[in-house]
């Protein structure tokens, strides 16, 4: 059994994760439109990961005999000024998700629900990785001034990224 409060918060989180998926798909589309297909692939893999994050919570709520209620997903940002802008928006989104996961964990601790607590640990750790990944790419973009040969090199590197279907990133 989930308390109504935890059930609601988990449903909210499913919505946040699906929105992230959708935001990263919009980023994919932006990169396709400026012919950076490696970057587009990078964000497509991001979107697949977010889908996995949402479904993992979806399945957990079902296992705990809760009810998943899917809510509307707002329109993502579709227009960006630059490559860097996309990464800044992504970093903001990841930090928002981290904040939500932390609040969820606070609620689980307060309600002393151990199963939700241990379930959320995976997300706590995942968010450390997610934020770091985006920060790392921002660092590289700053290094190359966000253009030229450096951008092409990064684009080629990003073209190799794959999602393994089980929540793990494969950085080739």
């Amino acid at each position, binding site marked *: 059994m989930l308390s109504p409060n935890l059930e609601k918060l988990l449903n909210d989180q499913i919505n946040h994760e699906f929105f992230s998926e959708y935001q990263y798909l*919009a980023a994919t*589309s932006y990169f*396709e439109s400026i012919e950076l297909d490696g970057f587009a692939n990078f964000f497509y893999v991001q979107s697949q990961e977010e889908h996995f994050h949402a479904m993992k919570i*979806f399945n957990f709520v079902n296992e705990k005999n809760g009810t998943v*209620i*899917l809510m*509307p997903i707002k*329109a*993502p940002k579709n227009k960006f000024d630059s490559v860097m802008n996309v990464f800044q928006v992504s970093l903001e989104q990841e930090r928002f998700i981290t904040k939500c996961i932390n609040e969820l964990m606070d609620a689980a601790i307060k309600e002393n629900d151990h199963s939700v607590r241990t379930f959320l640990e995976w997300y706590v750790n995942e968010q450390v990785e997610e934020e770091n990944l985006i920060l790392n790419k921002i660092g590289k973009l700053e290094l190359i001034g966000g253009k030229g040969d450096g951008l092409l090199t990064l684009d080629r590197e990003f073209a190799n990224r794959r999602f393994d279907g089980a929540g793990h990133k494969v950085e080739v």
Partner: protein
Amino acid sequence: MLTKKLQDALNEQINKEFFAEYLYLSMSAYLESIEMEGFANYFNVQAQEEHFHAMKMFNFVHDKGGRVILKALKEPKSEYTSVVNVIEESLEHERFVTKCINELMDTAIKENDHSVKSFLEWYVDEQVEEEATISKLLAKLKLIKGEGFGLLTLDTQLGTRKYQPGK
């Protein structure tokens, strides 16, 4: 190059395919809540197919040098009265999708865009299959009056369905 009209229509269809994914996930959640995990699995696979349909179009728009603009997804229905009710609603939804694909095809023909026309043929064929699959399932459910041992057998059978990439 896509005409603005076709690009807008394709973007609208991408939204509808993503909504279908979301609707099927919502049905899957309902079926989980009534402990029909085989049916839930069936709709989970349906959702994955819809995702593929959306992404196939997403990639096509880019291949044609167009721009995909993702729009808000409305709230899917989450309350159902029975398994039969879910299947009836999904059949209705597939018929709606078929109607949209047909209208898109009409537009492509009108604008004489052969690449869009040939691209949409896959969807036209796919919709015949989608409607047929759901119709057959509905017929079986009616046969067993949507309950009892028959329902259990059907649930077990649907539990084995797996998503085949490219469908």
